[in-house]
């Protein structure tokens, strides 16, 4: 018998205030757009409203740091790691909207901006979800928005990527949902905390398995990754950048809470071993496949598959330090990955276009600052000092060795070695002198990515010198 649901009080509403502000900013952007005449100003107004809402939500989220509170009877966990993951999602939304000043044509921008903001609400709900219903709601809110955003282009590749993402991701949602139904059957409660208290049963093991398949798909871990490169390549650049960080932040929040707080300690290791295994495979396969890519978005997709493998590996053994380091590495990945996306955006005239690796040839001589920034972000992605990528990998290695997962550490180092080759191919190309006539050199007129590059580079450097891993990471407030 479940306890009666208590009345909603102001503290509950306060926990959801950042999400409410973002959702309201989306509505406001839509309404204001009704009164705008055609022209480029429409883009700026919509993006400015979104940015204002996101900054306010960011400040409100920061105020929740260290104030854990189970809102709505434990459905939404305020505080804990939800704060850091929320900030990551909010930052990624801001940067993505800046890459092309909104997404789509002038008359579409208000609509796409609203969808982006509501998807971010979904990611925030996932990051703080304390029961199965909230996880499903957050996940679907995020995914439904992304299906539309992927298809939001006149290019047939974009529409195709939207359809592919819709079909495969909905199927993964189906697995996740059926797993949730079985977990509910095994425990008699939708609360994550109830799963760890219930006696082990085949229903719980099977439910957890299906649930983890769904999450592995959303995290694009190998062998559930085949959609990632196609969808990343087809979708508009801003959407790809958004997807690469925000879905990971939400799904890692769910996986973290599930691994640390929901599974019964006796059987947790047996249930989670396949997850560590697919993480290890992702590190190797993701980086190996990245070697052969000639499209920048595909390359970053495969590199993301490898990176998410590193992050999930930090969870192995479920040590509290591992959770801190995973969140630290996700923050590092956010900055270096979005920095690289901002560089790509500056090399495209149209933010909806695509960029081949060949466009980087001789970049150091044409645009030295851009080449320097890209080199720095690639150094970080490869995991070399003095960058956040290096520090993050050292911390993950320390945590997985400490938890006794030697084989994961060895594979992590092997994956890193392969990835160095992937990223340095681009660095080498940038510093080779080429005939200018042979390079398709485009420039963006949008100055906003430069701000993103400056912020990301500063963050990658600071986190590389001083690892500010969050200390308040309580997965489930009791």
């Amino acid at each position, binding site marked *: 018998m*479940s306890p009666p649901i208590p009345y909603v009080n102001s503290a509950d509403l306060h926990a959801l205030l950042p999400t409410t502000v973002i959702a309201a900013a989306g509505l406001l952007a839509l309404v204001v757009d009704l009164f705008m005449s055609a022209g480029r100003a429409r883009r700026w107004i919509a993006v400015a409203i979104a940015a204002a809402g996101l900054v306010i939500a960011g400040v409100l989220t920061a105020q929740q740091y260290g104030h854990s509170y189970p809102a709505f009877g434990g459905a939404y966990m305020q505080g804990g790691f939800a704060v850091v993951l929320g900030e990551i999602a909010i930052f990624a939304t801001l940067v993505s909207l800046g890459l092309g000043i909104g997404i789509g044509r002038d008359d579409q921008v208000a609509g796409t901006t609203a969808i982006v903001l509501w998807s971010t609400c979904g990611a925030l709900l996932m990051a703080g979800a304390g029961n199965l*219903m909230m996880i499903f709601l957050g996940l679907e809110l995020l995914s439904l928005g992304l299906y539309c955003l992927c298809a939001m282009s006149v290019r047939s590749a974009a529409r195709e990527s939207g359809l592919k993402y*819709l079909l495969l991701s909905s*199927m993964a949602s*189906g697995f996740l949902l059926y797993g949730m139904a079985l977990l509910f059957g095994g425990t008699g*409660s939708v609360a994550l905390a109830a799963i760890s208290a219930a006696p082990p049963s085949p229903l719980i093991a099977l439910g957890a398995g299906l649930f983890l398949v769904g999450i592995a798909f959303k995290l694009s871990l190998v062998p559930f990754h085949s959609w990632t490169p196609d969808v990343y390549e*087809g979708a508009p650049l801003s959407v790809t950048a958004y997807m690469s960080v925000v879905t990971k932040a939400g799904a890692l929040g769910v996986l973290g809470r599930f691994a640390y707080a929901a599974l019964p300690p006796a059987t947790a290791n047996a249930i989670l071993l396949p997850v560590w295994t697919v993480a290890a495979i992702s590190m190797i396969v993701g980086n190996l496949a990245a070697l052969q890519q000639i499209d920048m978005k595909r390359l970053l997709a495969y590199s993301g598959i490898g990176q998410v493998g590193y992050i999930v590996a930090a969870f192995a053994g479920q040590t509290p330090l591992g959770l801190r380091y995973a969140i630290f590495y996700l923050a590092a990945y956010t900055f270096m990955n979005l920095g690289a996306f901002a560089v790509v955006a500056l090399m495209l005239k149209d933010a909806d276009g695509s960029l081949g690796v060949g466009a980087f040839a001789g970049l150091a001589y044409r645009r030295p600052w851009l080449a320097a920034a890209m080199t720095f972000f690639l150094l970080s992605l490869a995991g070399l000092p003095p960058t956040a990528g290096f520090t993050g990998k050292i911390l993950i290695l320390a945590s997985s060795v400490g938890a006794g997962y030697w084989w994961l550490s060895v594979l992590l180092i092997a994956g890193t070695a392969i990835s160095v080759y992937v990223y340095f191919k681009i660095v080498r190309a940038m510093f080779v002198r080429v005939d200018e006539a042979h390079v398709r050199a485009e420039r963006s007129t949008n100055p906003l990515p430069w701000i993103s590059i400056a912020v990301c580079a500063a963050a990658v450097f600071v986190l590389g010198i001083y690892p500010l891993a969050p200390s308040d990471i309580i997965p489930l407030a009791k």
Partner: protein
Amino acid sequence: MTPSAFAVPIENYIGLSAVIFFLGVTGVIVRRNPLIMLMSIELMFNAANLALITFAKAWVNAAGHIFAFLVITVAAAEAAIGLAIVVVVFRRAAHVDVDEIATLHG
């Protein structure tokens, strides 16, 4: 109400839901028409709904019923977006088949 209030044993409901779920998964994997694939996904969702409602009755916990309503709402939104995307992708094509769209090589 107790589990004995089931006129049919609970295993039958869960067995049926598992069969529907399996049909849905097979449909998504085997069929090449995106509309049928969307329908198969709906089958997967509804299999979960049946399981949720059965368990809700067995445990006497209304959360399962609420969850099922939530899933129905989300599935409707998903179908709306899915159909819109199918229309946009196949507007110029004579017939709908996911093997015919291969600009992106997976």
